[in-house]
């Protein structure tokens, strides 16, 4: 741990703040191009059907309609499928629809009203097929198949000896297998073995800025203004789909109105390009939030954990089987299932581990990236079971964890990086704030209090890369160019602060440049809580490169060596002499010269690491909860919620706090009430009116957060924090419920109905 004082203690006004509090901030949502058309999408009412025919002639002849696109157009594209690693999702349905809400046809027209009217004129003949709505149905013998032929792409690359399979059996999109030691033998030699099953729910991202894209396309160039958080990923997908060289595809990013994973990777963007090509005019497609609810979800799933423990409370081995519901198309499921499978051990020491994890196709909304990325599912199951085992053995849950936690520096698994947080210190902080050791004895009555805690864990990315430019003007004003997208996580401020600190400039002299793949350096995407660490390193190096150039220039002009000089607030100090830089630059180059620093950060494939890259940093989540459970109604009220995270070093403490609290409230909502529900083949609450997200009045009575700084691999010792708050909340609440009323909820959300059923079942 690094005890040196952080240069970032002073609170700052976020650089994107003035735009955002005055309404001046421009999102892709706000963009309008001359001659721009508006698009709408016809969606499947069936969960699984063959498309016999589509008659769009009446729609095409409606006044104001410029283009109608169907699978007949998509099938003529060089490669009409997208998905992460495994590519099975067509730009628009080809031959089949696979979930209620699947995109069947799209219209570009002079306005949205005309486009809607045109949709109603499209006649689609369906031949309904039997659907599989759950993982169990999908895996049953003789189950209907979502896909008759193999998809494009390949399995996700992992380390040597680790299993990663594409489409290993019917309706299974991908499989992950990891072993360390002989888990079966170790379990056989354990004093106790406990097997428990956990069920995780499906939620939607519900970002307030809808999915919105504007495309302008010709035979020479494709240009897209997108709310997507991965401009380069999108550029490469669009180039591949349309068979164009990637340097003829240009993606622009603006402020993004929330994403939480929902706006990562390719989705409806190529459809907008296809419409623009066919119409010969720019096209805007803005989905409604209802359509957003039908576009992507977090993975529902079933996790079965078999865990061994010795009589003295030492954990021995864990054998896990995980089935995540991938929905109808791959999206990022193949990666998510690997992460869930790898993280299922939690932050504990094991003699042996065995995991099988599957992404299973069903006729429901595709699942993909969601803040936590498999870690939320894994942490819920793992931290629930750890608590259950402690209680079964009569060991205090705190002591049980303390005994088994990974220590600072312990590798998570052999070949992976060491734990870089003091997990026990974080747990102690939660326990202290919760008053766990001073808690009142249980009181009989209908409303009972209980406390619980949990330590969630996930890795912070492996094979990420970023490049950056820092351009310094003669005035000392600087522009940072990097393709991490400002999605609300505070990247603008954090990244500019890193450049400003490196160059010794005031923060408000540094601006984050607009993002456009033609001009902005490459980046693997705004993912994995990695912006401050990976893009931050690239920017720190670019700023250091600019600084070096500046000092070399000044040393040359002053006839001294660079070692004699320091740059302080845009003056060059040489001993007691202070030289102004701007006139020195102008005298030599003429007015307007810029110094351009370049930097990059990347992490190579490492076959010895289980996931093919040693994890860059660990993201722990410490959560403590006090609940009050009403035994007559089953209602759970969270009286006190404590959430802690490790920022390595906080580049912006207020932004870190916002990340932790925002993520934790999302997890809180999912734990207690939020869920995208299906009744049979149809989602029943896929509309903002019925889909309930946390409101201000849902806040726990006391809501505390804290951020520790245990050091990290990023600039100034920073590491990522954005997903942390998502991880431990559900298990902590379940643990507190058991503490209060002695029943165990293994399925989220913990609705009054479920809690009451459990209480009545225990009587």
């Amino acid at each position, binding site marked *: 741990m690094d005890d040196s004082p952080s240069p970032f203690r002073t609170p700052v*006004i*976020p650089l*994107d*703040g*003035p*735009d*955002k*509090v*005055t*309404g*001046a*901030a*421009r*999102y892709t*949502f*706000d963009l309008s191009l001359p001659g721009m058309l508006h698009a709408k999408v016809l969606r499947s009412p069936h969960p699984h059907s063959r498309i016999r025919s589509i008659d769009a002639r009446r729609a095409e002849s409606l006044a104001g309609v410029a283009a109608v696109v169907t699978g007949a157009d998509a099938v003529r594209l060089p490669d009409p499928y997208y998905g992460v690693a495994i590519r099975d999702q067509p730009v628009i349905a080809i031959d089949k629809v696979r979930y209620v809400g699947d995109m069947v046809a799209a219209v570009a027209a002079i306005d949205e009203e005309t486009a809607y009217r045109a949709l109603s004129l499209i006649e689609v003949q369906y031949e309904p097929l039997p659907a599989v709505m759950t993982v169990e149905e999908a895996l049953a013998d003789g189950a209907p198949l979502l896909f008759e032929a193999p998809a494009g792409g390949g399995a996700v690359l992992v380390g040597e000896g680790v299993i990663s399979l594409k489409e290993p059996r019917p309706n299974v999109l991908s499989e992950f297998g990891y072993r360390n030691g002989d888990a079966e033998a170790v379990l056989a030699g354990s004093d106790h073995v406990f097997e428990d099953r956990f069920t995780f729910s499906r939620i939607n*991202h*519900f*970002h*307030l*800025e*809808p999915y919105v894209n504007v495309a302008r396309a010709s035979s020479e160039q494709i240009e897209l203004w997108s709310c997507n958080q991965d401009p380069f990923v999108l550029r490469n997908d669009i180039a591949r789909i349309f068979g164009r060289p990637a340097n003829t595809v240009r993606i622009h990013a603006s*402020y*993004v*109105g*929330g*994403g*939480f994973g929902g706006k990562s990777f390719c989705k409806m963007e190529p459809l907008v390009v296809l419409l623009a090509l066919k119409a010969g005019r720019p096209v805007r497609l803005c989905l*409604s*939030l209802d359509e957003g609810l039908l576009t992507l979800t977090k993975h529902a799933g079933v996790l079965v954990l078999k865990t061994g423990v010795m009589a003295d409370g030492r954990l021995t081995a864990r054998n896990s089987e995980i089935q995540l519901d991938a929905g109808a198309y791959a999206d990022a499921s193949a990666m998510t299932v690997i992460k869930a499978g790898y993280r299922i051990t939690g932050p504990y020491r094991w003699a042996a581990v065995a995991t099988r994890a599957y992404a299973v196709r069903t006729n429901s909304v595709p699942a993909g990236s969601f803040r936590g990325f498999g870690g939320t599912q894994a942490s819920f199951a793992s931290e629930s079971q750890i608590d259950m085992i402690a209680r079964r053995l009569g060991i205090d849950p705190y002591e049980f964890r303390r005994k088994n936690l990974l220590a600072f520096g312990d590798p998570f698994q052999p070949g992976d990086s060491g734990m870089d947080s003091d997990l026990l210190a974080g747990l102690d902080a939660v326990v202290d704030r919760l008053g766990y050791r001073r808690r009142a004895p249980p009181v009989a009555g209908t409303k009972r209090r209980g406390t619980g805690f949990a330590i969630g864990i996930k890795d912070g990315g492996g094979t990420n890369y970023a490049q950056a430019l820092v351009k310094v003007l003669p005035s000392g004003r600087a522009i940072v160019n990097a393709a991490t997208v400002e*999605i*609300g*996580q*505070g990247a603008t401020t954090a990244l500019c602060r890193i450049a400003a600190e490196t160059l010794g400039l005031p923060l408000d002299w540094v601006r984050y440049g607009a993002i456009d793949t033609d001009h902005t350096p490459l980046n693997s995407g705004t993912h994995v809580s990695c912006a401050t660490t990976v893009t931050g390193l690239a920017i720190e190096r670019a700023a250091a490169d600019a600084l070096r150039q500046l000092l070399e220039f000044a040393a040359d002009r002053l006839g001294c060596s660079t070692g004699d000089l320091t740059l302080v607030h845009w003056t060059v100090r040489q001993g007691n002499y202070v030289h102004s830089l701007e006139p020195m630059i102008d005298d030599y180059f003429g007015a307007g010269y810029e110094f351009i620093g370049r930097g990059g950060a990347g992490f190579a494939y490492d076959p010895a690491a289980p996931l093919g890259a040693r994890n860059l940093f660990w993201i722990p989540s410490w959560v403590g909860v006090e609940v009050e459970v009403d035994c007559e109604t089953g209602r759970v009220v969270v009286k006190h919620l404590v959430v802690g995270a490790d920022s390595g070093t906080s580049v912006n403490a*207020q*932004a870190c*706090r*916002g*990340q932790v*609290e*925002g*993520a*934790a*409230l*999302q997890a809180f909502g999912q734990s207690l009430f939020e869920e995208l529900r299906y009744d049979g083949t149809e989602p029943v609450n896929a*509309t*903002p*009116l019925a889909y309930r*997200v*946390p*409101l*201000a*009045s849902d*806040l726990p009575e006391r*809501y505390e*957060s804290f951020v520790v700084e245990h050091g990290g691999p990023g600039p100034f010792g920073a590491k990522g924090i954005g997903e942390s*708050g998502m991880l431990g909340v559900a298990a902590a609440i379940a643990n507190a419920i058991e503490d209060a009323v002695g029943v165990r909820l293994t399925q989220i959300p913990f609705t009054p109905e479920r809690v009451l059923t459990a209480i009545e079942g225990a009587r």
Partner: protein
Amino acid sequence: MSQLIDITLTVNDRSHRLSVSARQVLADLLREDLQLTGCKIGCDQAVCGACTVLVEGMPVTACASFAFEFDGKALTTIEGLAAGGVLDPVQRAFLEQNAFQCGFCTPGMILSVKALLARHPDADEPLIRQWLDANICRCTGYQMIVEAVRAAARAGAG
């Protein structure tokens, strides 16, 4: 062809004479005809509150209100709050307390708070939480927003 209705609106102290379609909602009028794009449309169903603007000081969801209903009324949008470039105390509190992340809900949130503090300058936390239920923020977890509202109240925003 939908019927056009002549209306007069005062928006951010400027008077506009407009011909609006009977079907046009206020949010579209503000965004498209007056280029006041600070009025965001999230859910488009009067649930999320991102489109909140003030009509005679009262919060209204502009996405679900017909423009013609506001004939003769005075409206305030987020663009009208910083008179002469000086931030309103509520805007300043949101800025200083970092009470936003993606910022998409922020204009509606700030206007909603403006209306709250105009009526209840000493709003306590339960009332603040209750009032903010009209505005969804998916990013912040609300607590930093609640703190900004309290800071604005202390600064005499009401």
